[in-house]
């Protein structure tokens, strides 16, 4: 039913169909297509960045936990000069899953 109605209407709209195709061709031909190299190289860059970032975060956490094991475990929030301890405590919290964002921001 709908198919027949649709077919009929499409047949009645030949002029409109021609206009649609002509408009499409004119509009498409005026478009500025990005260079293909921008596409094939984009992924590699972003992947490399993600991989480097992940390695740096992992390394920083490892160093922090390592330092933390060598120092006093009690957070010394009143002694801001002891950055190594504060950094280690924060990293240990992150590694333990006990993330205190306020503490992290304060330390950073």
């Amino acid at each position, binding site marked *: 039913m*709908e*198919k027949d*109605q*649709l077919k009929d*209407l*499409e047949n009645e*709209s030949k002029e*409109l*169909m021609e*206009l*649609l*195709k002509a*408009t*499409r061709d*004119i*509009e*498409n*031909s*005026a*478009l*500025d*297509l*990005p260079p*293909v190299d*921008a*596409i*094939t190289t*984009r*992924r590699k860059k972003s992947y490399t960045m993600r991989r480097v970032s992940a390695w740096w975060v992992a390394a920083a956490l490892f160093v922090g936990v390592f330092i933390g094991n060598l120092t006093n475990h009690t957070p010394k929030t009143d002694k801001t000069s002891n950055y190594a301890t504060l950094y280690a405590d924060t990293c240990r919290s992150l590694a333990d899953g006990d993330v205190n964002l306020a503490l992290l921001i304060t330390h950073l």
Partner: protein
Amino acid sequence: MRLTAEQFRTLYLEHGRRAQGFFMRMMGYDIQLARDMVQDLFTRIWEHRDRFKADASFTTWMFSIAYNMCKNEYRHREVVQTYQEHIMTTTTDIATDDTLEQQQRRQMLAQAINALPENQKPLFLLRYEEELTVPEIARITMLPEGTIKTRLLTALKSVKESMDKYNL
């Protein structure tokens, strides 16, 4: 089958402009957005080049991704609101070789298509601008063919009435 860089380049040159035009019309003639989206579309195709099946239609695969990108984009922004400012500048800029009447006809047509509801517009563009069949559109949109035909009928009537109203 994994697409080689050379095959990808050929497909991009063959279909890229078509996809960009589809994005432009779907996004209310926002040329810059269409350019970004076509780049994003082909980046996804490049990333998923292992999934390409030699016996399947590249056009259907490409428009499936493009259609979903448009749906996501529609969720994030009010395309209709920005339409008017783009359509007036874009269609006028493109129509440098046309007569005033032809320009006017095209502007009216673009406005009539853009005024279609969100669930009819992509179907209309895929059927009448990209010239895909109803079964192909069903595969792209995952909608039943009957639903597509009903929506296409309503959309076509609406566009035709708009054009008849202005005697264009």
